[in-house]
């Protein structure tokens, strides 16, 4: 049932078995998993069924660290949450990303990746990708097309992985009808949690105070609560709720909001293939639009261990001839800056480049590699890395207030020297690895003109990860392996904020898998 909390008739029950705060991928998945469970479920969603400026304004926040997208742009606040602008990329974590690695302080998950297998299968259904199989060779073979083939990377320090594409599933649209029909689930729209009320000793959630922008106020009580509002908002709501625990709920060890991670994306250069081999399977343009999946090249686990670097993957994007020229790069730079709402500082230089000639060495190299073919084949190479968990990269409460008079959020996104070393070592490994297999040659061109020596146009994955991380040790994590907040018996957290590491992949499939897992936990009787 969907209920508009702004209506006078919107009256919650006296108490629910489960109250889920947030109706994004995690919240909707859990609600659906609890349909017909015999439990009464309340979902509180800040927005309505469509984008609304006034509600979106609640997500505005400050950025004090590395440049980042505006916080009301990078996340969406209506039914379906950020799935409303999701690109649909799906892939589970890799084993090494779950392991405790000596060179990644604060790394390691308290659960095994294997334990998530049944939940990844369920997540594949929710994300409408049809299969939980990520075998690269089998996926390529299924096309029965010689142009779709896995690269022979064995022994090069590299490996292939595949990403499957969801349509993408807009959870609020695709699952709205099921939520409306669910007799035991009430979804309150335009319902903003203003405070999380805990017992006097702060070890038990009692209720949440809810408000609408139209002025309505009410309380929702439940036996158990799940916070599922995203990587920034999960931390914010815990920090805001300070009327009993002065540092916020679950923050006795000053961990809430820390370890913020994204997926830094860096254009590292171009790749010119040798000979006639097809790279269609690895070309994101073809994969996304035509194949429903795309292969990427990653640094393999042995090389990660030997070089002591985090995970790193590259995406190849086919360029048409001339796209690699200084002029084409300038055009891309100008376009990217305008997309971020900024006028390019060095527009004059870019304009000059755009009028200039195609790079002579690039033409020579790809002609040398590809024989006498007149159509040059070049790929742009974008590297995306796993960020090192860093307690100084964090989400905090801002001094600025929102329409409810509550502190907004500030993001101080920080990267480390290890993160940069992962970039440079991964880039070199790509260049030499592709050479070892004589697949082609790379031109490395990593800009360092941005903040703290990072590229001026550092990209990101639109992922907010790690701010209520999972650990069995309450001094190292906000939630335990069941995603329950340490020290609070009946409060759980869902979403990528519980990830202790980010991997180099994409989080949505794992968010949904963990939501299925948490719902299974919630269905068990309370001891």
């Amino acid at each position, binding site marked *: 049932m969907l209920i508009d909390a702004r209506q006078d008739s919107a009256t919650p029950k006296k108490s629910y078995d489960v109250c889920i705060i947030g109706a994004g991928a995690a919240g909707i998945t859990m609600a659906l998993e609890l349909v017909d469970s015999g439990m009464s479920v309340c979902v509180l969603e800040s927005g309505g069924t469509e984008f609304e400026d006034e509600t979106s304004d609640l997500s505005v926040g400050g950025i004090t660290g590395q440049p980042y997208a505006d916080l009301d742009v990078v996340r969406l606040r209506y039914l379906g949450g950020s799935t409303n602008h999701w690109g649909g990329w799906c892939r589970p974590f890799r084993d090494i990303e779950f392991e405790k690695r000596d060179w990644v302080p604060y790394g390691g998950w308290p659960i095994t990746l294997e334990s998530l297998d049944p939940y990844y299968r369920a997540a594949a259904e929710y994300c409408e990708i049809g299969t939980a199989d990520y075998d690269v060779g089998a996926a390529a073979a299924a096309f029965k097309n010689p142009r779709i083939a896995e690269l022979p990377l064995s022994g090069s320090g590299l490996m292939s992985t595949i990403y499957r594409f969801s349509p993408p599933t807009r959870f609020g649209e695709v699952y709205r009808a099921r939520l409306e029909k669910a007799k035991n689930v009430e979804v309150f729209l335009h319902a903003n949690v203003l405070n999380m009320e805990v017992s006097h000793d702060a070890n038990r959630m009692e209720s949440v105070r809810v408000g609408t922008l139209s002025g309505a106020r009410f309380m929702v009580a439940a036996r158990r609560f799940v916070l599922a509002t995203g990587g920034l908002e999960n931390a914010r709501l815990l920090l805001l709720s300070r009327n009993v625990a002065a540092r916020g709920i679950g923050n006795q060890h000053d961990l809430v909001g820390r370890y913020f991670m994204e997926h830094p994306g860096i254009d590292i*250069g171009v790749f010119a293939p*040798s*000979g006639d081999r097809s790279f269609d399977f690895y070309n994101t343009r073809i994969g996304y639009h035509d194949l429903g999946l795309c292969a990427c090249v990653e640094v393999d686990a042995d090389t990660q261990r030997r070089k002591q670097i985090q995970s790193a993957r590259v995406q190849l994007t086919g360029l048409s001839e001339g796209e690699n020229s200084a002029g084409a790069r300038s055009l891309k730079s100008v376009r990217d800056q305008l997309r971020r709402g900024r006028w390019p500082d060095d527009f004059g230089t870019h304009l000059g480049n755009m009028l200039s000639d195609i*790079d*002579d*060495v*690039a*033409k*020579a*190299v*790809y*002609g*040398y*590699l*590809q*024989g*006498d073919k007149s159509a040059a084949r070049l790929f742009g190479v974008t590297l995306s890395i796993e960020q090192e968990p860093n307690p100084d990269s964090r989400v905090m409460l801002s001094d600025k207030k929102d329409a409810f008079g509550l502190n907004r959020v500030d993001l101080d996104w920080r990267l480390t020297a290890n993160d940069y070393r992962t970039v440079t070592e991964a880039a*070199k490994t790509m*260049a*030499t*690895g592709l*050479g*070892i*297999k*004589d697949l082609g*040659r*790379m*031109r*490395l*061109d990593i800009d360092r003109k941005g903040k703290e020596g990072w590229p001026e146009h550092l990209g990101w994955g639109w992922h907010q990860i790690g701010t209520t991380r999972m650990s069995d040790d309450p001094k190292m994590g906000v939630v335990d392996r069941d995603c329950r907040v340490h020290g609070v018996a009946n409060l759980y957290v869902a979403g990528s904020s519980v990830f202790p590491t980010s991997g180099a992949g994409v989080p949505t499939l794992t968010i949904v898998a963990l939501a299925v897992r948490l719902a299974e936990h919630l269905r068990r009787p309370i001891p």
Partner: protein
Amino acid sequence: MPLLRRHFLSLVGLSITALASHPVWGALAGKPAIPALARRLQDALPNAASARALGNACLARHPEEADAAALARQVTALLAPYARPAASGRELADALSRLRVSEFQRGDVVDLDGWVLARSEVTVCALVAMVKADS
């Protein structure tokens, strides 16, 4: 990674030592045989014009390396473990490929305007470019 003069000088030294045990390859590196060597190498590459362009780009950035005899000695020293002197065109192409792979495996690469190339690629292309320029 950048191709530095000291690398060339050290390779020249190694080349001379290596050639002591390869009298036939050594003869091929002699002055009258340099054009023939360059032609054989050029024929073993996918695109002669592009190889020369690549070689010219390298020499433009490192004019101190523009010494055909020294380049020829380097190439013959590098190739000696991979091909017999009378190798056919196909055998030579295969040898160059195996040499490149070995260099990438060892990390013996050079940076040419950001392009990560095997050392022998740059040396061969530079030689091919020089001989064409001289002819």
